[in-house]
């Protein structure tokens, strides 16, 4: 994992205009996030689409969670299998604080409850991180796996703090608010999430520019040399881990505010795997990578899961393909084009890309057909569903659809191989040209 993107640029002075010019993608994303619910606003009933608002809220939570995960994975080179622990524990703490507020013993305004979640995440990350960060690399990954399983089992077992299998329910309408809002409507919670997500993104972005952030990168790339500089890599890991727990705790608090219940699912393995999936698919080398991954995975989760039983298969295959062919993630794939873009030769790649598109579509189509046939044969049959494609019912027990799927995959695969080779030649020709042009300049 080489350092790309997070390299600190000297912070230029330049006033507001300069700030807008440098940070326009973030500002645009923020403005977009603020506007999005209104695209689905139903003017006749005066209501927002519940589905869209809940999906957007989930995206906001996931962005914070994935970015906090990348503080470990991308920025410090620490592979954690138990990051959900801090999301979940932050969530549990928030639920208890909300219940205390409701009971009148702790009048904290609802807007500030994520602070409780953050503190919860921080405290648990300090305690558990003290053990986990004694080690690095695979041993660290194993300890976090152990911690994850330990906390999950504990959450199922103990009633007082975790509420056992039923979890802890709460009610976000505590009646305490800085702005006198009730927070009954999901849209109000959504804007609260946007505000806290924006704060967290800024916080984590600034953290990458502190000495701690830089040392985390150094320890990731070569921890022995970092030691020679005079820093203790263990302390660097410890602080990075603790702060990452803090931000995961914020995500957990936002989760609690959205769903008003925290169960052991929030600390369990699948949730940790989700963070890994989002971060890796988005790209670990770029600060914004996990944001892209979070948006993509939640979209997949909400939309594809409506259409198909097997969306997790697609997510898994996507993950494997990324690990095998694009270890720098989607943002890494985009960044590879940077020199060609700067050399003004992007246009030469449009043709080769279009030629790739057809075989890729064929293979994807064949694969999706095969997976769907398979799942309709077993899981779908158990649920009594039938496979219908725009009014045509496909019988997964007949041979024809299977043959079509197989032919699409094999034919498309062979074509793709051929197209890939041609694309490779075109790509190296263009990058060669760009390099030569740069040398001449």
């Amino acid at each position, binding site marked *: 994992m080489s350092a790309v993107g997070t390299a600190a640029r000297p912070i230029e002075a330049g006033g507001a205009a300069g700030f807008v010019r440098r940070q326009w993608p973030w500002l645009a994303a923020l403005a977009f996030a603020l506007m999005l619910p209104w695209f689905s606003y139903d003017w006749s009933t005066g209501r927002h689409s519940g589905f869209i608002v809940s999906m957007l809220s989930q995206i906001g939570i996931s962005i914070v969670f994935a970015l906090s995960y990348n503080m470990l994975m991308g920025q410090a080179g620490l592979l954690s299998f138990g990051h959900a622990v801090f999301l979940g524990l932050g969530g549990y703490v928030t639920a208890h604080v909300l219940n205390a507020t409701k009971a009148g013993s702790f009048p904290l305004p609802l807007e500030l409850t994520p602070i409780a979640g953050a503190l919860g995440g921080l405290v648990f990350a300090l305690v558990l991180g003290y053990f986990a960060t004694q080690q690095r690399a695979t041993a660290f990954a194993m300890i976090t796996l152990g911690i994850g399983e330990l906390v999950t089992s504990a959450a199922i*077992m103990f009633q007082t703090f975790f509420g056992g299998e039923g979890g802890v329910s709460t009610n976000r309408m505590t009646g305490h608010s800085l702005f006198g809002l009730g927070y009954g409507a999901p849209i109000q919670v959504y804007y609260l999430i946007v505000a806290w997500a924006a704060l967290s993104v800024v916080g984590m972005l600034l953290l990458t520019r502190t000495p701690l952030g830089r040392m985390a990168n150094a320890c990731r790339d070569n921890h022995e040399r970092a030691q020679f500089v005079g820093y203790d890599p263990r302390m660097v890991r410890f602080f990075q881990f603790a702060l990452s727990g803090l931000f995961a705790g914020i995500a957990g608090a936002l989760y609690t505010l959205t769903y008003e219940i925290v169960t052991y699912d929030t600390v369990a393995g699948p949730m940790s795997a989700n963070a890994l999936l989002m971060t890796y698919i988005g790209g670990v080398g770029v600060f914004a990578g996990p944001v892209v991954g979070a948006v993509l995975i939640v979209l997949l989760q909400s939309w594809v899961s409506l259409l198909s039983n097997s969306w997790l298969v697609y997510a898994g295959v996507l993950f494997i393909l990324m*690990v095998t062919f694009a270890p720098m993630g989607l943002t890494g794939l985009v960044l590879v084009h940077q020199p060609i873009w700067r050399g003004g030769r992007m246009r030469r790649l449009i043709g080769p890309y279009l030629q790739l598109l057809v075989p890729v579509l064929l293979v994807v189509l064949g694969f999706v057909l095969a997976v769907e046939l398979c799942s309709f044969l077993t899981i779908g049959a*158990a649920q009594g569903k039938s496979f219908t494609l725009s009014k045509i019912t496909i019988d997964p027990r007949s041979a024809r659809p299977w043959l079509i799927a197989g032919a699409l995959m094999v034919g498309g695969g062979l074509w793709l191989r051929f197209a890939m080779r041609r694309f490779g030649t075109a790509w190296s020709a263009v990058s060669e040209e760009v390099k030569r042009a740069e040398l001449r300049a």
Partner: protein
Amino acid sequence: MEVVLVSLLNGLVYGMLLFMLASGLTLIFSMMGVLNFAHASMYMLGAYFAYSVSRVIGFWAALVVAPILCGVLGAVIEMYALRRVHRNGHIAELLFTVGLAFIIEKGVQMAWGLLPVPYRVPPVLDRALFHIYGSNFHAYRGFMLLISILMFVAIWLLLTRTRIGLVIQAALTHPEMVGALGHNVPRVFTIVFAGGSVLAGLAGVIGGNYLVTEPSMAATMGPIVFVVVVFGGLGSLTGCFLASLIMGLVQTYAVVLDVSFADLLARFGLKVTSATPLAEVLTMPLPRVGALLPYLMLILVLLIKPRGLMGTRDT
């Protein structure tokens, strides 16, 4: 006494099953530096293959066919995927196996359904072997013990008495040096990966009907096998063997010993009531905490002895 002896036998059966899984994993981990998350998936596939095969040609044929299928699959995975991912570094390799485990689980769900399949013990072995203090010792458990001991002896002979075994042993501790001496290390990797998959598949065949054959069996077994491998230490089969037995015994005894911290404190004259701080933790009976013990052991061993029980290298 009765409980102690019966549990000892059960613990041995479970520990040997764990060893069958862990031995392959520890070889793969030590040689390739990859913690193979898909190893327990091979165990699951072994059970499912055995279920399907045994419905057609019977259990005894499945005992041979299913592990071979797993081995072939393992070899294909190593040659066509893992070797390619290897270039992207260790983390990418590890994540590849994570993704693979995930897809295998979903694939099994799609191929065999979400519910457990009725994979049963063959009728010949479905009886009591002998009675001990009034409780039966099931013949199938004896059969499992026999298979795992045979496998243990086979591995031991293979590793110490054959040429390829010596190369594998050398590659455990000095992989670069073995390559420098002109051995085809990638082929050794493939053999070890396939061999590990065969063992995992075999464990699935004999464990699948003893436990339950369901899509989540890999996820329940996987972490425990990791704990065994890390606990035993990298590069040491003996450590792995000891760790398997310890883990098997600990988990079995944890189920039958109905004690809690409160009982222990009571011996020293301290009484735990519901008003005592952490009363819930202190009064939790051991059988309920049983599932936690492997992870506690893992964390403890990594903190006290990061190389594991008998490890020769850092993880």
